[in-house]
């Protein structure tokens, strides 16, 4: 009966499809369209070095969405995200690498092949880890996933045939689609412009997929498990199954993000997949806002842009040096800021950046009342 639906009454829901719609009000539709147009036109407005950074942001956002699904939606704290990122990165690099090169390479250079493969291998690793999550909760699960990072780091460091070895590294996956290189400067656009567009489109695909997953039966099961897993079990949510699905999907996202992450710089080394990387992703989810896709994206952009922002800080606060051997320097400020931000957000706005947005929106939503 959608043809007879009265206009301008977004709250008058006449079907469940309408009730679950992603963009359920005209305002949301307009703002999303405007944001999309702005995002797509950024390459004409910004310099290439910024675009490169934004491309990294987009990839980091894919990884953060993955962690958000397992930690934010399903409530399973995972410190092992770096491990899954690493698996994805090495699967993609190994598949698309030069067969005659220094390290393992199979020559499958098409992104349409290595990207899903990287995701699937990581997802498989996630499924193998999932039984732990079905038996453990909270802190214990966090400690066990922490173990994964150390195992992963050891393997990556030692398996130099694939990874190039500690301190040496190897080239990242090759960006090619149907035999044509995707990120090469030509008459139409520069490499960084193309990279940004590619990563933005991939982010959109992954974000919309995650949002759809979150509003499906599976997503509702995740939320039920997060809120109280015993209660969820009692109302008929199959805990082992959904926890496994959560880890598998999350690892798939991590694998894809890992595969793409180093294609921007072109080179990476096994030391990258340390505990610090995991913590960085946890920070993205927490600062962005746990349990929301937009929050994960916002958090990923914020954390990824933070070093750049602190460097800009130097212009206003001259006594902070840009030299690493002077005190205080921007790198110290960055580390401190990092910790302070996590503390401040957890105390004052546990819903993160997304929570700030919710607050602003509710202020106007209730206008001219307060509730």
């Amino acid at each position: 009966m959608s043809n007879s639906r009265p206009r301008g009454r977004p709250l008058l829901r006449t079907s469940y499809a309408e009730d679950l719609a992603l963009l359920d009000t005209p305002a949301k539709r307009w703002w999303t369209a405007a944001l999309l147009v702005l995002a797509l036109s950024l390459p004409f407005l910004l310099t290439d070095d910024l675009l490169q950074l934004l491309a990294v942001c987009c990839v980091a956002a894919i990884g953060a969405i993955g962690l958000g699904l397992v930690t934010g939606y399903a409530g399973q704290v995972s410190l092992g995200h770096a491990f899954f990122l690493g698996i994805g990165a090495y699967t993609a690099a190994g598949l698309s690498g030069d067969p005659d090169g220094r390290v393992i390479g199979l020559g499958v250079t098409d992104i349409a092949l290595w990207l899903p493969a990287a995701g699937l291998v990581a997802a498989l690793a996630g499924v193998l880890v999932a039984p732990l999550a079905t038996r453990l909760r909270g802190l214990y699960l966090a400690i066990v996933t922490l173990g994964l990072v150390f195992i992963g780091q050891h393997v990556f460091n030692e398996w130099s045939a694939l990874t190039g070895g500690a301190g040496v590294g190897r080239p990242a996956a090759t960006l090619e689609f149907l035999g044509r290189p995707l990120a090469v400067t030509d008459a139409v656009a520069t490499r960084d412009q193309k990279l940004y567009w590619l990563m933005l489109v991939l982010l959109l695909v992954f974000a919309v997929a995650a949002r759809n997953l979150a509003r499906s039966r599976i997503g509702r099961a995740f939320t039920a498990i997060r809120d109280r897993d015993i209660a969820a079990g009692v109302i008929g949510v199959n805990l082992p199954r959904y926890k496994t699905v959560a880890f598998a999907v999350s690892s798939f996202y991590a694998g894809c993000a890992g595969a793409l992450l180093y294609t921007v710089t072109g080179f990476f080394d096994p030391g990258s997949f340390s505990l610090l990387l995991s913590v960085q992703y946890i920070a993205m989810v927490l600062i962005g806002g746990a349990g929301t896709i937009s929050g994960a994206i916002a958090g990923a952009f914020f954390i990824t842009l933070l070093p750049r922002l602190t460097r800009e800080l130097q212009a206003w606060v001259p006594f902070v040096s840009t030299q690493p051997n002077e005190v205080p320097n921007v790198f110290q400020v960055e580390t401190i800021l990092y910790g302070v931000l996590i503390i401040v957000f957890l105390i004052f706005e546990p819903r993160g950046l997304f929570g700030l947005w919710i607050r602003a929106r509710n202020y106007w939503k209730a206008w001219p009342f307060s509730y």
Partner: protein
Amino acid sequence: MTATTAPSGTAPVGTAGAAATTIASRVRDRAGATPHRVAMREKVRGIWQEVTWASYWDTVLTVGHGLLALGVRPGERVAVLAENRREWCWTDVAAVAVRAATVGLYPTSPAAEVGWLLAHSAARVLVAEDQEQVDKALAVLDDCPDLHRVVYLEPRGVRGYHHPALLGWDELLALGAEHRAAHPGAVQRLMAAATNADLATLIYTSGTTGRPKGAMLSVANVDFAIRTVTDGGGLASPPPAPDDLLLSYLPLCHVAERVFTTWSNAGAGVQVNFAESIATVPANLREVQPTILFGVPRIWEKILASVTIRVASASPVKRAVARFWLRVSDRIGGRLVATGGRHTPATRLAYAIGWVFCYRALRDRIGVRRVRYAASGAAPIAPEVLRFFMGIGVPMHEVYGMTENSAIATGNRPGRVKLGTVGEPQDGVELRIDETTGEILTRHPGVFAGYLDDPAATAAVREPDGWLHTGDIGEWVCGTHVRITGRAKDIMITAGGKNIGPAGIENELKASPYVKEAVLVGDRRPYLAALIGIEVDTVGQWAQRRRLPYTTYRDLTSKPEVVELIGSVVDEVNRRHPPVEQVRRFRLLPKELDQDDGELTATQKVRREAVGRAFADLVDELYAPGGDR
């Protein structure tokens, strides 16, 4: 006093040959003309389920056949004891289709009253909503010899019952489908035989002074009412149309909601949306954003009170902005009152700016953003309340009517509003005011056929020449509008010999957000006094803001600060009246008035005598010598 010609295009009463136009034939014609448009919506499990005209008509046919299968014959009654919902309309229209009449009972009525009404109306089938209503019906079944079957709508809790009279709604539909297959066209044949004299519905008056009386409205009465509100311009202008939405939330047993829900739905195709319950009306209003909204004064007062509280407890910036624009809207309202509801360039400009900053959002929050016609009726309302709504841009119109004249008498017309009056007589309505008693009399084709089984009461209110005594005292304003000054039987004569209609003063008191009920006393007493019931939400909020601790309603009413607060409200009202009409003393009612204690009618009207009896000690205190207040 007014035009006496009947509206053009009226079929003369009792034309032989052609079938009379009933709500059933109107629904049938709408289903034929616009089968896929939405007729009604009801929220079930969070979703507004839509009913198209085609499915509306199809269900009506099945229910009609079901009623025939249950043995309902023309001229008999079908009772409905349920909140507003789709089944109410289906049953109502189906009963009329098989030439039976619908009787609505208030779901809040206690079992004894339900039993009395069922026995008095001689209902053959009762449609009861849920276990609560089924229990009432089964308790009184033995006192109702005519009641054969009780159809329940909600099986929850009733499944375990094995009473031979019980029947589920689904079973009724199955019976109907079976009967429909066996006797195709049986309902249509009955509809073709319908006459204007057929009883269409039996509506019991609320009974503020005694037993309810069953007013019989014929097919012709209902048809006149429908034509007046839809084509006669009696309501909105332009008239209600299929694009209009309305929210159905007041009891359908009352004639006013029947006009808006069933009759304007069948007559004009207005989309009816059923509220989930009376408690969810604010939320449902926000969702539906109706274009036509009818409310009793209590509803409008409650919305005004909620705006007052929510502004008072808003954050400082919001509060300052809202207060400023509410002051502006008050000025706009005052100007509109003076012009009869037509904007001047200055008010239009002020409103346009205020719309951006406040009114648009405010109206959206309280669910009246898209209202193009708002009406208040069924009881007197304070002009301040109407002015508030006019000021924020809701076109408010006070209308007047009663069960006995099918709710059709007078109404304020868009652009010709006179505050404090109930408007001009509708087209085709003759209205005069008795010179000696001041009582309002009306005559038109909507005047009822009489009270069921009570010729004496009928004769008392209906003259042989068709004039109906409304029992309301009124006067002409500017020769066109009618002002009601009170109910004839409520008039108080103080010991000083002054006649006073209490309704006006009571409504001025009730216009305060802190006052829920005001009952004036003073008949054969030296001066006027009042029993006042506080509005617990607003006074509670006020007490919290003043950091005044309290526990219960009773505790709150005994606080000297609260008495002082109400005292200031009373003083404010007194300032507008000459000394004889001033409330000298008042007492706060120690409990909320309740239907179960007999203090309120089902429509939440105060039964003065019952209140006077229950709080006799307070009344005595009011007239005890010495002591101030």
